[in-house]
């Protein structure tokens, strides 16, 4: 969690400071529990193989939660997340670094548009995302 970001401090093309996540298997289990999601590909490696996966997978919605965390943290406590959309392009695995990056693409009034994405430790694009936030102005 960073401090407050203000509209006056943001320019088109600014990079967002990256955020790294690395999910343990226990975290995957806890996320399944918190979302009441019994899908076996997230905790049963043998079953994941039946569906063609070399290991259990990180939940798409967990990566979505991380994308929103990345944007909400960037905007600061008085910023507001107005919208976001993401696509699932490739699988994410536990115990691997997953890096969230982004940049400012547009500023209109007090609304800032961001391109955000998640990469794995090979640099592969896992989830591209766009987001809109409202930032406060310095008083």
């Amino acid at each position, binding site marked *: *969690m960073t401090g407050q970001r203000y509209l006056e401090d943001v320019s088109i093309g600014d990079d967002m400071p990256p955020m790294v*996540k690395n999910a343990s298997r226990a*975290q995957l289990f*806890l*996320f399944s*529990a*918190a*979302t*009441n*999601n*019994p*899908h*076996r*590909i997230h905790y*049963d490696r043998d*079953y994941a193989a039946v*569906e063609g996966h070399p290991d259990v997978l990180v*939940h*798409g*919605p*967990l990566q*979505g*939660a*991380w994308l*929103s*965390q990345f944007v*909400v*943290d960037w905007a600061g*406590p*008085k910023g*507001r*997340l*107005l*919208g*976001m*959309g*993401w*696509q*699932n392009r490739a699988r994410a695995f536990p115990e691997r670094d997953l890096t969230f990056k982004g940049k400012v693409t547009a500023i209109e009034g007090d609304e800032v548009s961001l391109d955000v994405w998640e990469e794995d430790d090979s640099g592969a694009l896992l*989830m591209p995302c766009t987001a809109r936030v409202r930032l406060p102005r310095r008083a």
Partner: protein
Amino acid sequence: MIGQPLSEPVTGTITARDARRFALAAGDLNPLYFDEAAARDAGYRTTLVPPVFLAWSLTPPRPLEDVRVDGLYRGEGKRVTLNVKRVMFGGEEWEFLEPVFAGDTITSVTRLKSLEEKAGGSGPFVLQMTETTYTNQDGAVVARAVGRSIAR
């Protein structure tokens, strides 16, 4: 059935405890979800619910008999049942219109937006799009979500 509700509206109260359990499972320690004073400092009346938790906050408890071999719950009501081997989460599009507070009572309605058969690099698949509207106890629409899932 495009445009039709896929099930009865679901209503539930999102407790601070559930919201925090979700935030902690995601490793998200934002004080706005945990600390009343921090939430008030930011101009809110109480702690917030992590925005994307809305999608999971109202899931009704289901019996074990409803769990399929892949672990997913069997469809219910008018939900589309696809005779496929697997379903992957394809992505989501969210609009957040109003803040959601711990203790809010939210009603969600999910409609089928589209169902299309597509040709993919690794064979044909079905792209299903649903739109869910979330409304709070004051009748304000707090969020809309369009979900894509891929079945093959």
